[in-house]
C-alpha cells in the first residue's frame, strides 16, 4: 500500500495525494514516510514542472536515471532538452551551467560527488559567487550545484571529503545541508527558487533513509527558509550543533545522554551559509555548553566558525570550553576499522557532551 502511494505521489499534484494520505491515516497513526532520495526527486520534479526555465545537467542524470537514482524518471517526463547528460567534464559543464544562469535560465548542476566539484571550483566561486557583487547587481546567478558530499562507506580518501567549510567561507554563495526528507524537499525547492548560487550538499548514506513527512511537506508549494536552523530536540543542559548525517548521530547521542541525566538540545543547522548564528547563540545562552559536530576536517571547519561566533557573542554565558567533534585530521583510510576511527561516532558526541558538562567519568559521590 505504501509502495503504491509513493509511486502515485511522485510527479502528481496535491489534490490526488490528499485522499490517499487520509486513507492511510485511518489505518494507522504513523505519518507518511518518505526516503531522502524520493524527497529530492519529488522536489526536482515539482520545480521543473512549475518553472520551464529549470533544467537538470550532470553525469548520468538522464538515461542512467541518476548515479544515485535521484533524477529517476525525470528524463522520461521532461525530455532530453531539460535533463542533460554531460560528458565527464566538470569544468566545462559547470561553466556552461553558470553561463546559462547569466542568461536567465535556472540550471541544477549535479556533481556525482562534491569531490569532483574541485574540477569546477573556479566557476562556482569566481564565475558564480562573485558575479552579482562585481557587476553591482547586473549579473545574478540563479544556479544550484547539488550532489552527495562527505564520506560514504569504504570509498577512500579521494571520494570522502566534506566541502561545507570551503564553500561556506565564500561570500556570495548559499550553502545548504539537508538532513531529513523534510529538509531535502524544502531546502532543494528553496534553492531552486533562490536567485543566488546555492551549493546543496546532500549525503549518499542518507539517500535511503526514511523520515516522516506531513501533508504540508508533501505540498508542491512547500519551501523551507534559507538561513534558518531547526531545533530537532529541545534541551536544557548542552547544545549540540550538527548538519547532514551527523544530525542523526547527535539525536542518538542525545538519547544516550538522557539516560545519564543530561538533557541535550540538538540543532540541525540546515544552512551553513548563511549560518543561523542567532539560533545557535540563543541556545547556548540557555544551556551554557556547546558541542559542535561535523564530518569534515577539523581545521578551519564549520565547528571552528560556530565556536568563534559563540565566543564573540555569548562568552559570558559559557560555563565550559566549546567542544568540537569532527572528522579525523587525516585523508580518509579504506580499512573498515580505520574508517570508523576517522569519522565521528555517536560515542564521540556523547563523550564530548559529558566533558562539556564536566562529567567525563562518573563522580565518586554519584557512583
Amino acid at each position, binding site marked *: 500500500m505504501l509502495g503504491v502511494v509513493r509511486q502515485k505521489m511522485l510527479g502528481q499534484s496535491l489534490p490526488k495525494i490528499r485522499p490517499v494520505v487520509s486513507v492511510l491515516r485511518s489505518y494507522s497513526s504513523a505519518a507518511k514516510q518518505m526516503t531522502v532520495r524520493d524527497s529530492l526527486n519529488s522536489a526536482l520534479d515539482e520545480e521543473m514542472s512549475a518553472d520551464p526555465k529549470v*533544467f537538470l545537467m550532470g553525469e548520468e542524470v538522464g538515461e542512467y536515471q541518476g548515479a544515485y537514482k535521484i533524477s529517476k524518471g525525470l528524463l522520461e517526463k521532461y525530455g532530453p*532538452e531539460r535533463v*542533460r547528460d*554531460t*560528458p565527464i*567534464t566538470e*569544468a*566545462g*559543464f*559547470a*561553466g*556552461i*551551467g*553558470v*553561463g*546559462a*544562469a*547569466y*542568461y*536567465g*535560465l535556472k540550471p541544477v548542476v549535479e556533481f556525482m560527488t562534491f569531490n569532483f566539484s574541485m574540477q569546477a571550483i*573556479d*566557476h562556482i566561486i*569566481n*564565475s558564480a559567487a562573485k*558575479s*552579482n*557583487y*562585481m*557587476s*553591482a*547587481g*547586473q*549579473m*545574478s546567478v*540563479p544556479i544550484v550545484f547539488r550532489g552527495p558530499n562527505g564520506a560514504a562507506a569504504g570509498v577512500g580518501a579521494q571520494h570522502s571529503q566534506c566541502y561545507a567549510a570551503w564553500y561556506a567561507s565564500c*561570500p*556570495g554563495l*548559499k550553502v545548504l545541508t539537508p538532513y531529513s526528507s523534510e529538509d531535502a524537499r524544502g531546502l532543494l525547492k528553496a534553492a531552486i527558487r*533562490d*536567485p*543566488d548560487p546555492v551549493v546543496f550538499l546532500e549525503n549518499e548514506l542518507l539517500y535511503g533513509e526514511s523520515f516522516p513527512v506531513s501533508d504540508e511537506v508533501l505540498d508542491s508549494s512547500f519551501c523551507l*527558509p*534559507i*538561513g534558518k536552523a531547526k531545533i530537532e530536540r529541545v534541551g536544557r543542559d548542552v547544545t549540540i550543533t550538527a548538519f547532514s548525517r551527523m544530525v542523526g548521530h547527535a539525536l542518538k547521542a542525545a538519547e544516550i545522554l538522557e539516560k545519564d541525566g543530561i538533557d541535550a538540545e540538538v540543532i540541525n543547522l540546515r544552512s551553513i551559509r*548563511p549560518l543561523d*548564528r542567532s539560533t545557535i547563540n540563543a541556545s547556548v545562552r540557555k544551556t551554557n555548553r556547546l558541542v559542535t559536530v561535523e564530518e569534515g576536517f577539523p581545521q578551519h571547519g564549520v565547528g571552528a566558525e560556530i565556536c568563534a561566533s559563540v565566543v*564573540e557573542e555569548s562568552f559570558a554565558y559559557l560555563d565550559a570550553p566549546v567542544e568540537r567533534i569532527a572528522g579525523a585530521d587525516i585523508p580518509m583510510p579504506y580499512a573498515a576499522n580505520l574508517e570508523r576511527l576517522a569519522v565521528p561516532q555517536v560515542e564521540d558526541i556523547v563523550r564530548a557532551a559529558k566533558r562539556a558538562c564536566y562529567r567525563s567519568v562518573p563522580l565518586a559521590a554519584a557512583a
Partner: protein
Amino acid sequence: MALSYLRSSSSRSANLLRPLSSAASLRRPISTDTTPITIETSVPFTSHQCEAPSRSVETNPSELLTFFRDMALMRRMEIAADSLYKAKLIRGFCHLYDGQEAVAVGMEAAITKKDCIITAYRDHCTFVGRGGTLLEVFAELMGRQAGCSKGKGGSMHFYKKDSNFYGGHGIVGAQVPLGCGLAFAQKYSKDESVTFALYGDGAANQGQLFEALNISALWDLPAILVCENNHYGMGTAEWRAAKSPAYYKRGDYVPGLKVDGMDALAVKQACKFAKEHALKNGPIILEMDTYRYHGHSMSDPGSTYRTRDEISGVRQERDPIERVRKLILSHDLATEKELKDIEKEVRKEVDDAIAQAKESPMPEPSELFSNVYAKGLGAESFGADRKELRATLA
C-alpha cells in the same frame, strides 16, 4: 576623384557633400549614405572544415565612417586610460586594447544586441561596442559611482546585460564555457541568436575551452569561439605556448576560419558568416589575427619579449584605423581634414568624459555590503572588525 562624383547622381553627392562641408557645427553628423560599396578584404580567409566566405565585403559610406569614428574613439579612450593609470587615478589591473579595435567594431557591424558577447579582461572597447558610454568606462576604471559596475568591479569587470554583454572576466579561459552556456540558453529559449565568446591566444590552450567546445558540438549550440590572436599570451609568444598555433584548426571536428583581425571589414564578413553557420550547424571558431600595441597590461612595457621594430612595423603596415582612413579617402567619402576633425571631436569627447568621471564620487561605504546576494534574506555580513562594522544583507 571628386569630379566623378559630381558627375553622377547629384542628390547623392549633395547628401555626401552637404553635411560634411559644414565646418561650423560642433557635432558633425556621420554620413548617412548607405549606397553599397564592395571592398575586398586585405587577404582571403583561410578555412578549416568549411568553405570560406568570399573576400568581397559589402559595405557603405555610413558604415565606413562609423568604423572610423568608433575605432578612433576606442583608440583615444585606451590611450587616455594609459595616462590616467600613470597618474595613479586607475589602480590595479589595466589591459589595453589599442591595435585590436577592428575586432570589436567589425563584430558589432555583423550582429545585433540580441546576440551575446563575452570576453576576458581586455574588455573596455568591447563594452563600448555594445553601447557602453565613455563615462561608464572612465568612472569604473577610477572606481567611482558612475562606473558601469558602480566602482565595485574595476577594469576587468565591465558588464552590460541589457545589451547582452556578459563581461569582463579575470580568470583566463573561464569565459569560454560561460559563453557556451549563454549559447545553450539562447537555444533553449529559441531566441535565434548566437554568442561570441572571445579569448586570447594564451587562453586557447585551456582545457575547459575544449570541454565546452565538445559539449557545444554535441548539443549543436550557437556558440562562436573567437580567438583574438595578438600573438603573445602576456610575455609568451604563441609558438612557445602552443604546439599548434593554428588556433582556427584547434577545434578539430569544429570548423574554423582565419581572419585578418586588423581589417574591420574582414571581421564583419567572418562574424556574419559565423552567425549564419552557428544558427544552423553549431559551434565554429574564428581566429582573428590581430595585435596589441601596449604590453599585456600597464605593468608590462611590452618590449622585453618583442622588438620595437615589430610593434612599429605593425603600426605602419596594418593599423586598423589607418586602413579604414585610406579606404574612406580613396573612395572619396570624406576629406583628410574631415577625418582629422572627427579625431579631434573624439578626443574632446574622451576628455569631457574623463572630466565628468573625475567629478563622480567614490561609492558610499554602505556599498561595501550591497549586491553580495540578489536576495540577502537578512543574513549578516561583517567588516574587518566585526564588532565595529557589520551589516544586514537585504
